[in-house]
């Protein structure tokens, strides 16, 4: 008797918990879906060829986001170009060369912490460090983003370096290969996926960054070439979104940019999982 009522109680508890979890899943899914659909519905109608291909002009009251698109491309390129060698180099040094495990641990811990700091703080530091000396410009923004993304690239590279089997290294050393040859020929090829994943994650972060760039890269909308562009102030898409929505009340444009960013983000996540799948398959060969 007693036993039966107990098991009944347990059962109804199970059902209740299951229902609660189903509700939270439903809510999460609904929220994501709502956000996606809402942004796309408000944004897509505002995306016109003119918007994408022109620059804003106060005379004609026309708004165009070409400069912002270009700025975004420039800043992504400049950041990756700088952060890749630094981050990958640091990761290789830490996992392959450094012998003092304590120091390595401290650096890894610092990197971990660094990647959790609010980006506005990077912006503040970047402003003092870079913008004050070189002026507000895309390059100052890129340098700030380099500091911000360095831990990401370093950690993802390190993680994939650790998956390169020790037996490869032993095999190569056993044939009389020197340290650098071992690293270049058997270690580095094994960590390409980590580097690519790190890159993709970083591009995602750069696209989404506004706080750190507002301080350092400014929000101009001029069309420039790559070199001039880096030396001049400029807004990336995300910063432009902020400016159009907040300062100018141009919500149509803001949502158009939002839709573009959203699609880009989805594409980036998709690319990241593709890369991971591709390398997982190659590894299991």
């Amino acid at each position, binding site marked *: 008797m007693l036993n039966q009522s107990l098991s009944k109680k347990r059962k109804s508890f199970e059902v209740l918990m299951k229902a609660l979890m189903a509700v939270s899943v439903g809510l999460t899914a609904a929220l994501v879906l709502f956000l996606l659909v809402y942004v796309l519905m408000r944004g897509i109608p505002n995306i016109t060829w003119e918007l994408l291909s022109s620059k804003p002009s106060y005379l004609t009251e026309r708004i165009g986001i070409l400069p912002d698109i270009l700025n975004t491309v420039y800043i992504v390129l400049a950041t990756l170009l700088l952060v890749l060698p630094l981050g990958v180099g640091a990761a290789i040094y830490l996992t392959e060369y450094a*012998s003092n495990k304590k120091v390595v641990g401290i650096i890894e811990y610092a990197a971990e912490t660094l990647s959790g700091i609010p980006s506005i703080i990077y912006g503040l530091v970047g402003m003092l460090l870079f913008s004050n000396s070189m002026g507000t410009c895309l390059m100052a923004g890129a340098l700030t983003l380099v500091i911000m993304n360095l831990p990401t690239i370093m950690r993802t590279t390190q993680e994939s370096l650790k998956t390169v*089997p020790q*037996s*490869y*290294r*032993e*095999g*190569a*050393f*056993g*044939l*009389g*290969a*020197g340290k650098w*040859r071992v690293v270049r*020929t*058997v270690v580095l*090829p*094994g960590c390409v996926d980590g580097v690519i994943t790190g890159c993709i994650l970083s591009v995602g972060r750069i696209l989404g960054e506004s706080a750190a760039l507002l301080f350092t890269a400014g929000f101009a909308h001029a069309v420039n070439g790559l070199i001039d562009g880096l030396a001049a102030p400029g807004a990336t898409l995300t910063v432009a979104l902020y400016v159009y929505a907040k300062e100018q009340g141009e919500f149509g444009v803001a949502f158009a940019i939002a839709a573009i960013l959203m699609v880009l983000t989805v594409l980036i996540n998709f690319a990241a999982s593709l890369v991971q799948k591709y390398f997982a398959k190659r590894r299991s*060969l």
Partner: protein
Amino acid sequence: MSNIITVKDMCLWYGEHQALKNVNIEIPEKSITAFIGPSGCGKSTFLKTLNRMNDLIPGVKITGDICYEGTDIFAKDVDVNNLRKEIGMVFQKPNPFPMSIYDNIAYGPRTHGITNKMQLDDIVERALRDAAIWDEVKDRLKKNALGMSGGQQQRLCIARALAVQPKILLMDEPTSALDPISTSRIEELVTELKEKYTIVMVTHNMQQAVRVSDYTAFFLLGELVEFSKTDDIFSQPQDKRTEDYITGRFG
């Protein structure tokens, strides 16, 4: 027969833990020497000391002398990469690189500066023939080596080691991960190789030691207990502990 390696009073520590105690041994040239002994007695450690693979492990301390062809391998002017070219190694688990069969074999020669395509082709073929695997792989040299069977992979690793033309080949339980057929192929191969190379192999398999080796060294708890001709050690061991071990009374 002359000795290619002479070890005098060698001790080795992993941090505080002493893994080898006063090892003295002289390894004869162009012969097969087997290391036997229970797990953890230091066979692999000793083997890896001979081509200084232990340098890669932090906290290893070594005392005593090891001479290879009359030169101290720990001397300051010894290039460890050249030493490992002369004293090659085959590992317990086959460890081909994730590249083509050809590139695996060519890895060593390329490391030591050979870039000429014809010369490389030649070396690759000779190494694969020496390792008795040429016929199986000659049509798929450009295929990834990871697609081969375990036994083939191990023979590939032997070929890879042979491609740098070492004088000595160190093998750490080269057949322990393999099936009986691959095992006997590798045993045959090893017996052929001693024409040209000195072979030192660790094995847990007494029959294997008897079948292939000329000399046997018995290790116990970091000590070299007994070292002599394989026939002698297995028919009339001098030390009680050796006798106990080879008759299966412990270990």
